[in-house]
């Protein structure tokens, strides 16, 4: 396989991985856009989604699509519950209190999961026939195809909800100015809960797809993808939905290229090097806007 062919293959792998980062990053960016909170428990919501999908497949023998939907619904409800119990009471508290609470929620989800499902990694059943698409010397396997298709569908659906529905318009209004939005008849609490629900459901989809792709899940699986999805959100411009999508794909591609052409051990370092570079040279990210703060 010559350099060009290897490059294309790594791009395919990168887009596949990046799609998952994008799904998780959307939750970060939407929640930040609405209540200016970096929800560091989001990676663990993704982990719970993977487990719900796993049990849906193994215990009820259902196919991947119903399992994915069940996982998204259950995890979406978990996201709403976390917001109601942990974040809502602190909405007027200093930002640092929310951040510390988010880290606390993260540990709570990780170790509660360990208690109930044991720390042992589980093997995700093979739910897709080992079909693969061969285009010349490039290979797109069944898992990658599934990831592409599901991610595109979910992103189109999210864009439609945000742009075309009254809840989407309410989300945009609340993200601009919560107080004014309420004075226009918008129930901000409901909008915030909905945002957590949607973000968590998308992360759950990412969790199930990772299970399908890597065939392995464990209670601490959310830590690194959670942090990388945060990097993706910052790269794209935190608070921007197109930014999260783009940031996820870009990060996935960079990781795949680093793995393929330099060394897979350097992959994680590359992701965080990007975070440092973005914060140094373009803190607002690709799609973010520079904002002046009056002092």
């Amino acid at each position, binding site marked *: 396989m010559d350099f060009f062919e290897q490059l294309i293959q790594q791009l395919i792998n990168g887009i596949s991985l990046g799609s998952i980062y994008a799904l998780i990053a959307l939750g970060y960016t939407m929640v930040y856009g609405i209540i200016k909170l970096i929800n560091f428990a989001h990676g663990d919501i993704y982990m719970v989604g993977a487990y719900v999908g796993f049990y849906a497949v193994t215990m009820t023998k259902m196919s991947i699509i119903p399992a994915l939907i069940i996982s998204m619904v259950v995890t979406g409800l978990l996201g709403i519950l976390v917001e109601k119990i942990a974040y809502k009471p602190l909405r007027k508290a200093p930002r640092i209190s929310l951040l510390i609470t988010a880290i606390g929620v993260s540990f709570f989800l990780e170790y509660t999961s360990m208690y109930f499902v044991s720390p042992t990694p589980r093997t995700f059943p093979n739910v897709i026939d080992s079909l693969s698409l061969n285009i010349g010397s490039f290979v797109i396997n069944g898992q990658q195809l599934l990831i592409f298709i599901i991610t595109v569908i979910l992103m189109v*659906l999210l864009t*439609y*909800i945000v742009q*075309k*529905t*009254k*809840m989407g*318009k*309410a989300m*945009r*209004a609340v993200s*601009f*100015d919560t*107080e*004014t*939005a*309420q*004075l*226009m*008849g*918008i*129930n*901000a609490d409901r909008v915030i809960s909905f945002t957590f629900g949607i973000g968590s459901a998308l992360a759950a989809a990412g969790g199930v797809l990772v299970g399908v792709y890597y065939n392995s899940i464990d209670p601490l699986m959310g830590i690194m993808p959670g942090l990388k999805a945060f990097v993706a959100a910052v790269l794209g411009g935190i608070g921007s939905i197109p930014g999260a999508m783009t940031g996820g794909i870009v990060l996935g591609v960079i990781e795949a290229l680093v793995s393929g052409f330099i060394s897979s051990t350097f992959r994680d370092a590359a992701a965080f090097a990007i975070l440092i570079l973005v914060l140094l040279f373009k803190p607002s990210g690709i799609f973010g806007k520079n904002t002046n703060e009056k002092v």
Partner: protein
Amino acid sequence: MELLKTDGVSKVFGGLKAVSNFDIEINEGELIGLIGPNGAGKTTAFNLLTGVYQPTTGTIDFAGKSLVGLKPYQITSRGIARTFQNIRLFSELTVLDNVKIAYDSHAKYSLVESVLRLGRYFKEEDEITKKSLELLKIFKLEDKAYEVAKNLPYGAQRRLEIARALATKPKLLLLDEPAAGMNPQETQELMEMIRWIRKEFGLSILLIEHDMSLVMGICERIYVLEYGCIIASGTPEEIQKNPEVIKAYLGGEV
């Protein structure tokens, strides 16, 4: 018929009484002014009426029901809308979307209906768009419907804010310094517009304003607030002659 009545309303921040014994009555269809020096508590009073702040003491009744304890969106759905002293549009959204967001509080379709694109979604969305465009036409903004709100000139932003407030279908409209930053001609046009809005939409209006020519020109009754207390109320003629008011504004002995 009485629309709004406040009784013994006060608001304390820490040890500071921002509003004290704020008692007003507004009848259906009335156009009332609320005036007072800077820092008198006028905007705080608006924030109390719209649920942004909860009163420390006192009652606020609207259309015979208490508003105390309700959230701002619930008060809006009861029929109170407001504009702001400093324009607070959704600046990154289009002019049309700013108005549609306010109309959306009356839309009945669910998220599932909108995602599945069922009949009611299209019917209601078309209706909201149509009504929003009609409202923009009234305020001479229809040609700017698809422009981003922040790109509008100042006067147009003021008009959009009033249009957006009207889209919530209020019974009582609270206008917080609508003439701020306007030149005399724009102020005159605004005065006509406020009169027309009241007549056309059948509203009561409570108006905070520093421009005395505007207040005296359109208000039927005026309340005067100083240091959070109502010090006088009456017709424009009575207020102009009231020694307490003269003292509050000019600061001297009468």
